[in-house]
């Protein structure tokens, strides 16, 4: 809802997909695990039936959907199997976007900047990309895999000061927070410490798992950066958060105090 309201404010209309399904959370890496592609395939095919491209707010969904999309466009055999299984026709005609890409390419960060009513006055924010947005680079083609810039530009448009720090593309430990908490904590702490050392007051992410893992790690750090989801920043900067709070879509005082 934060995203939809923000987008509406920017003149983009986002429609929620009627019968959406979980993307499956992980892209299956084994060449014969075709069945695991059924749910992302179904999501893509539904979007196609609805005559629209897909926009996601989550790095994980983007990763799974974009890779599935590429695979079905390139591999006729797998496509056939999925079509038969799901009983829907789809050959990769649609595009899958991350909201950040839409903001950059459709709205334009300069236009976004003009719509900002509560600029994040010079808060230092660490953009955290993690893995899923960027890798594998050939499949995702999202940004430079080692030197990404899109989140930094987004933050600048909102009036924040992005900080650059070496761990912005490192892994947070991913789903291991369920099966091996300690290893996740280790990986996520390294990210937080790196951001902290670079002087970040906040850290922004676009993946719920990253957010959770970083929260876990933050518990054992002194004054860790505040963790926020990128749509929260967007909603706040565009001034739609008050509306959202009233409607219960955004918990009160989620946003850290700006100055």
């Amino acid at each position, binding site marked *: 809802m934060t995203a939809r309201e923000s987008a509406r404010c920017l003149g983009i209309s986002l429609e929620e997909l009627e019968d959406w399904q979980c993307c499956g959370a992980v892209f299956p890496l084994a060449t014969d695990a075709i069945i695991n592609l059924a749910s992302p395939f179904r999501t893509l095919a539904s979007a196609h039936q609805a005559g629209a491209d897909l926009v996601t707010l989550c790095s994980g969904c983007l990763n799974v959907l974009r890779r599935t999309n590429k695979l079905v466009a390139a591999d006729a055999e797998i496509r056939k199997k999925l079509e038969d299984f799901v009983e829907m026709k789809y050959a990769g005609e649609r595009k899958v976007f991350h909201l950040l890409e839409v903001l950059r390419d459709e709205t334009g960060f300069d236009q976004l900047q003009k719509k900002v009513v509560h600029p994040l006055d010079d808060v230092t924010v660490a953009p955290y990309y993690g893995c899923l947005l960027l890798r594998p680079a050939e499949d995702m083609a999202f940004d430079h895999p080692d030197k990404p810039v899109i989140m930094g530009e987004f933050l600048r448009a909102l009036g924040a000061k992005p900080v650059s720090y070496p761990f912005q593309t490192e892994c947070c430990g991913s*789903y291991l927070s369920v099966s091996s*908490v300690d290893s996740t904590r280790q990986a996520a702490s390294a990210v937080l410490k790196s951001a902290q050392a670079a002087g970040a007051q906040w850290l922004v992410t676009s993946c719920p*798992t990253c*957010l959770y893992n970083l929260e876990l790690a933050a518990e054992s750090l002194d004054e860790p950066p505040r963790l926020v989801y990128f749509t929260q920043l967007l909603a706040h900067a565009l001034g739609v958060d008050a509306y959202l709070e009233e409607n219960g879509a955004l918990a009160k005082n989620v946003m850290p105090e700006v100055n």
Partner: protein
Amino acid sequence: MKLSRDKLKSSFLQKVAEMSGEDIASCYQCGKCSAGCPLEAAMGILPHRALRLLQLGCEEEALNFDAVWLCASCHTCESRCPRGCDLSRVMEALRMIRLRGGQSPVHPQEVDEEILQRAPQQAIVSCYRKNIS
């Protein structure tokens, strides 16, 4: 360790190559993947060893290579490998063979209740997909 032609041409190796889609022979053991692996410390072993075990035809050792359960599929290795060999896919193949053989390192009943409460759906689904047969 004893080596022989048969050991180097087993059907198990063939299966790993097919399931991963990777050419095991292409790895020249430079270790760049291990050097960048964010979970290497937790694994307690360099992950590129998995490829070496396969190159040497060590089926049993490869199937006991428990670091596979700690691979987060983050693709950091793949993004730097000079030989275009995707170790995360090889890890997945080894994991799948074990999962399909009935092994499951994670049992839903045993997962901490608090984690299930707090963790996002995405993390839980991912974990189950990677760890439950």
